[in-house]
């Protein structure tokens, strides 16, 4: 066993942290208040190579290993969860293309994505099919050498801003993934979703009205779309878990800072056990989460399956970040409820993390499935 990061990973971790603290964290409040992740922030991130973080160098990527990637996602989550979610959705779209795309597709799309010329968006959910993507209604009808896509995708992060969409639709052979350009005729975006938190992420519905997509843009095999989506979820879970780790750390930092400055009854509130217990429990969750993430990313670096570990990390991360933000608001007393203090934003942002990328209930199903598989019992959602 070796729990240390290698030199490169350490260096990256340091660099990510510095960049995020300097360039992103100071903007977090405005990103939330104005409801937008500024383009120049994404441009800066692209210049640093972040938008191609896990892509190979052939596609102008930074070729980070998975552990270094989680350090990046963690640092971004710590600085600002809204723009980190924009980044996450982009990266998972790129990951889907990297894992399942043809050479042509990769050459066409990934470089532009890594350079930040095209942002990615991943369109799986529909109004009537969230947890159960197999229930999707969007259709892909073959039409000559093209497909015509018809239907509605909902809750698509980066919709409206993205240049490259990965869209799932039902072809005659079954659910199929497609790479869809933003300027495809027949593709329209809906109004902005107004949300509790993550307000700097642009989330919209996608309306597909006879959107014509060349058969060459089928991602993976026709009829294998659910497999494409699910395998991308391994990465997405780990990526989101790293975001939650960063957010939870930030919440704890804010709590520690407040508790070590605020006096009541003649002493720092940090001297009270009630407050200490909140801080202790938060730290416990953070470290447990960190180890789940490190383990999962280590498996990935080893080229081993990490699906189960990533799912656990995401499930736990959603809980940990919410509970931490919740108790750290409490540590702030009345100040925690005033928007001038960043903890209330974190609390709103944190709440998404048990829904986005698969609800906690569905992740429990996945974990239980793994647990019971050893006993030969099949678990269905």
């Amino acid at each position, binding site marked *: 066993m070796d729990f240390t990061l290698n030199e490169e990973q350490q260096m990256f971790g340091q660099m990510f942290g510095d960049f995020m603290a300097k360039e992103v964290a100071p903007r977090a409040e405005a990103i939330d208040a104005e409801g937008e992740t500024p383009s120049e922030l994404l441009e800066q991130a692209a210049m640093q190579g972040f938008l191609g973080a896990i892509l190979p160098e052939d596609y102008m990527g930074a070729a980070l290993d998975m552990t270094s990637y989680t350090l990046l996602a963690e640092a971004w989550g710590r600085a600002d969860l809204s723009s980190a979610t924009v980044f996450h959705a982009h990266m998972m779209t790129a990951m889907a293309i990297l894992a399942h795309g043809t050479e042509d597709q990769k050459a066409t799309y990934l470089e532009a994505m890594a350079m930040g010329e095209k942002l990615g968006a991943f369109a799986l*959910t529909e109004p*009537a*099919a*969230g*947890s*159960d993507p197999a*229930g999707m209604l969007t259709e892909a009808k073959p039409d000559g050498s093209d497909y015509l896509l018809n239907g509605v995708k*909902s*809750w698509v992060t980066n919709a409206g801003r993205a240049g490259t969409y990965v869209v799932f639709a039902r072809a005659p052979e079954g659910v199929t993934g497609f790479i869809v350009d933003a300027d495809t005729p027949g593709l329209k975006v809906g109004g902005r*979703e*107004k*949300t*509790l*938190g993550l307000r700097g992420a642009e989330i919209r519905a996608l309306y597909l009205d006879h959107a014509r997509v060349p058969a060459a843009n089928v991602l993976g095999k026709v009829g294998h779309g659910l497999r494409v989506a699910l395998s991308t979820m391994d990465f997405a879970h780990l990526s989101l878990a790293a975001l939650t780790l960063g957010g939870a750390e930030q919440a704890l930092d804010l709590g520690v800072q407040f508790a070590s400055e605020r*006096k*009541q*009854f*003649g002493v720092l509130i940090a001297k*009270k056990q*009630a*407050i200490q217990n909140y801080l202790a429990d938060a730290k416990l969750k953070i470290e447990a989460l960190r180890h789940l993430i490190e383990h999962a990313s280590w498996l990935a670096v080893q080229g081993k399956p990490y699906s189960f570990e990533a799912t656990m990390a995401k499930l736990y991360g959603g809980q940990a970040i*919410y509970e931490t933000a919740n108790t750290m*608001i*409490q540590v702030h*007393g*009345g100040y*925690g*409820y*005033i*928007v*001038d203090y960043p903890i*209330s934003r974190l*609390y*709103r942002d944190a*709440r*998404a993390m*048990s*829904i*986005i990328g698969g*609800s*906690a*209930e569905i992740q*429990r199903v996945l974990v239980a499935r793994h647990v019971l598989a050893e006993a030969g019992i099949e678990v*269905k*959602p």
Partner: protein
Amino acid sequence: MDFTFPREMEKFRKLVREFGEEVVRPAAKAADEKHEVDMDVIRQAAAIGLLGVPFPQKYGGVGAGETGYCILMEELGKVCTSTATTIGAHIGIGAMSIYLDGTEAQKQKYLVPLARGEKLGAFALTEPNAGSDAASIKTKAVRDGDAYLLNGSKIYITNGPLADVISVLAVTDPTLGAHGGVTAFIGEKQFGIQVGTVEKKMGIRGSATSELIFEDVRIPAENVLGPVGLGFITFMKTLDTGRLTLGAATLGGAEEALRIAIDYARVREAFGKPIAHKQSIQFMIADMAAEVEALRSLVYRTAWMVEQGMPYTKEAGMCKLLGSQTASRNIHRALQILGALGYSRDFPVERMFRDARIAEIFEGTNEIQRIVIASQLFKEVGIRIRP
């Protein structure tokens, strides 16, 4: 034992519920978005007596007692926590302090117009360095002829920008400390109390919270509330009833979350069936219901204790503690059951989620409630607890 409500209380509930559904609920979303109190709603509530529910009719109230007041807060808590907060601060702490410790003349002069809703009340205790530790307030009141001059600043005062009548606590004798040196006053906005920063909040944005600044504000000596030097007692006693009825408001929020969760789980399908068929959902809903019923029993039993004249400090703390947790937890679960729609501002759960969080903080944080409860329990066995 009889767990039914008297008929007049049931009908009073019907009144408040209809008012809540027809007047308050439709206004809640806009008030939240504008970050503004909807004064039209408050005026309509005043017109039918809802700003004076617990007070006797001879003081312009409805005469519905503590039970009626809990009913009001429960029903308002279902439809709009902001409105419950505005009215709760007005009745439950603002006017209540005058009702509990005011002289007959003070009641006639201040309680009557407050109960009738002709004036709005507030309760000013918290200061920048005195939140949980309310005894450390610094606002000073110095005797000056037949009046006191008040200097200092109060923060986070609900109804601060709107209130006409403000109960305020200030130090009259710094050598005596909280017990003996602190006095309660009935202030009027027109005495020169200034409104400072109006806070931007995560939730209850349809209620107004602000700083109140006292610069040589002259309050006549006849406006001393309760005995000079014993204001801390007046204020703590007032907070006891405030905590009970805050518990009632959280009961409303918790019930509403349960109703929304059931309604949604009944119709939302995943994997070919309504999600109501999944144990993950069923168990969340069962827990929600069980906690709601426990809270309901606690709240109305405590209201009954108040009406019987029994001591209820410990129980009031429990109402606030259990209530705020139950509401937050239930709304958290309802949001989960709604999935992405729960996270959307197009549905009320999102607002409820932001609103609910305050109840764990104000009127004494939940940590302070635990201290209150524990100190009552240990007092019974001869141990004195300090915060």
